[in-house]
């Protein structure tokens, strides 16, 4: 186990190294980073000041060293627009994003798992056919468009829910649905196939032979075992949600990190954009590492392969 943790952690460090190298290189290959780091419309002496401040007049290896050192010490630059350190802004908005991601995950579990179960128990029935259509639509409807249509129906025409912003549960409902939609559909598919597989196994046949009532077999023997791969998907879900949240937060004016990133793009606030991408990458690498270690702890087979 310690060996596995060391190997897996070193992979994560390599990943972070490649991430930092990529961001560093892209900014320098595509133009003069000073024009990005200085405020739009800066004068020549301002550019010179920015170059000196960020060490842009030195050689690339030195610049890279400084770039990494800045990240490690939490110095991601100052946002032009907010006049505040980027890291401070990021952690100020993080709870809002987590709240939305949590609500979306909860909602997709509440929709996806029962629907998947229902499809698996009555294969090829009406529910299964409906489930198939929902799963297919879930993977093809762009989440942000679903959000726009929800606003149109529930805010503009029915006037039941607010169009956006942060507040009580009514503000959370539509963005959570738009964000969780894709995940709910994949949960439905996975629960269905996982459940079908489990229901064909020997121990389910034994449980039936024992004369247990059908719902006990399905709930206790079937569902419990079908849940393992479903929980695995929850880890992958985080990456998907970080991606989708950017655009959903913009649609619903939700004050999270995605909205912050959008403002950064819109205001040409380069330190903010770069800082958010770095931090989002670091967070995902870190969470993936934790998940992998957790699985290795639960399932010894993972530890031993490779």
């Amino acid at each position, binding site marked *: 186990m310690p060996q596995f943790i060391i190997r897996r952690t070193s*992979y994560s460090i*390599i*990943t972070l*190294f*490649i*991430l930092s190298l*990529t*961001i560093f290189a*892209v*900014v320098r290959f*595509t*133009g003069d980073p000073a024009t*990005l780091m200085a405020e739009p419309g800066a004068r020549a002496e301002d550019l010179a000041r920015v170059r000196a401040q960020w060490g842009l007049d030195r050689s690339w290896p030195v610049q890279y060293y400084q770039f990494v050192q800045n990240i490690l010490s939490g110095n991601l630059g100052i946002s032009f627009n907010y006049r505040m350190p980027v890291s401070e802004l990021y952690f100020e908005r993080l709870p809002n994003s987590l709240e939305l991601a949590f609500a979306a995950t909860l909602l997709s579990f509440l929709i996806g798992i029962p629907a998947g179960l229902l499809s698996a128990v009555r294969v090829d029935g009406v529910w299964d056919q409906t489930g198939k259509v929902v799963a*297919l*639509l879930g*993977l*093809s*409807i*762009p989440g*942000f*468009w679903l959000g*726009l*249509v929800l*606003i*149109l129906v529930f*805010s*503009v*025409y029915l006037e039941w829910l607010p*169009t956006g912003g942060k507040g009580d549960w009514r503000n959370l409902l539509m963005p959570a649905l738009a964000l969780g939609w894709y995940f709910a559909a994949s949960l439905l598919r996975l629960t269905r196939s996982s459940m079908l597989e489990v229901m064909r196994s020997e121990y389910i046949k034994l449980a039936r032979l024992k004369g247990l009532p059908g719902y006990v077999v399905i709930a206790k023997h079937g569902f419990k075992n079908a849940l393992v791969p479903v929980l695995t998907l929850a880890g992958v879900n985080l*990456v998907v949600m*970080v*991606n*989708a949240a*950017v*655009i959903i937060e*913009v*649609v619903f004016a939700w004050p999270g990190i995605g909205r912050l*990133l*959008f403002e950064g*793009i*819109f205001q040409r606030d*380069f330190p903010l*954009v*770069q800082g*958010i*991408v770095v931090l*989002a*990458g670091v967070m*995902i*690498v870190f969470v*993936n590492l934790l998940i992998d270690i957790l699985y290795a702890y639960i399932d010894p087979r993972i530890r031993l392969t490779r």
Partner: protein
Amino acid sequence: MSTTALPRAIDFAAPNPLRRWLRDLPLLPLLILLPFALAAIFAPFIAPYDPTEPVPGAKVFAPPFWMPDGNAATLLGTDFQSRDLLSRLIYGARVSLIVGLMGTVVAGSLGTAFGILSGYIGGWVDQLIMRVTDAWLALPALVFAIFLATVAGPSMWNIVIILGLVYWTRYARVIRGEVLSLREREFVQLAEIAGASRLRVIVRHILPNVLNTTMVLASLTIGVVIIAEASLSFLGVGVPPPEPAWGLMLSEARSTLMAGKWWLTVFPGACILLVVLATQLFGDWLRIRLDPQQRNL
């Protein structure tokens, strides 16, 4: 085996190949995709108006023709600059399909090339490519694409390259796995013994055998790429205005959504949905077609 199940009757009276081929075609996805493809190719001949210019004499925000106030001259209504929505949707098909196809081609070529190199050459090349693949897989693709697009500046071809760069990793992973097992097969080893160069083995023996997998992966990527392009355009870092891209149209429609101008939001989104849905269905069909093991199931 249960006694009630009869062996499946073998179809001796095979119909002629053409009819069989027609019967097996994925009708629904083709029926959806064909109009969009035709619209994209023949946009200048089909579109009633210039998609970037106001329609002469038309009002701004004219609703579709069946609504009161609607006008038969602008069938699906007009936008905030009194441009014809239908014409913009037709030209928008061009942007979506070109970016979807070309982005997938870039991603597929990069990923397949790296996958083959990694699997066939092995050693430190394999290590290097796989570490980079892992690193890029761990990045949130859309956020990374937004970053690249912000730095590179908005243009359609930039988006094609960026989305190719962001989505190649899955190909590399899968193809490498296939090549690892191909490398051990007799026909590859015999070719090596016969003195074929590495390049020849790769081009003549490895590549043709992984192309099916690349095709299946491509059919699954194309929808993702189309949605990603729409997302980037929606956020203002994709295809720049006044170009008619569906994502950009949704972005422009957002400010008037509250005023109930529903057609500007519903139609572009429905187009994205239909195209992505069709590519998904087509991908499912292709996967079963190209994988004999699944076909028999």
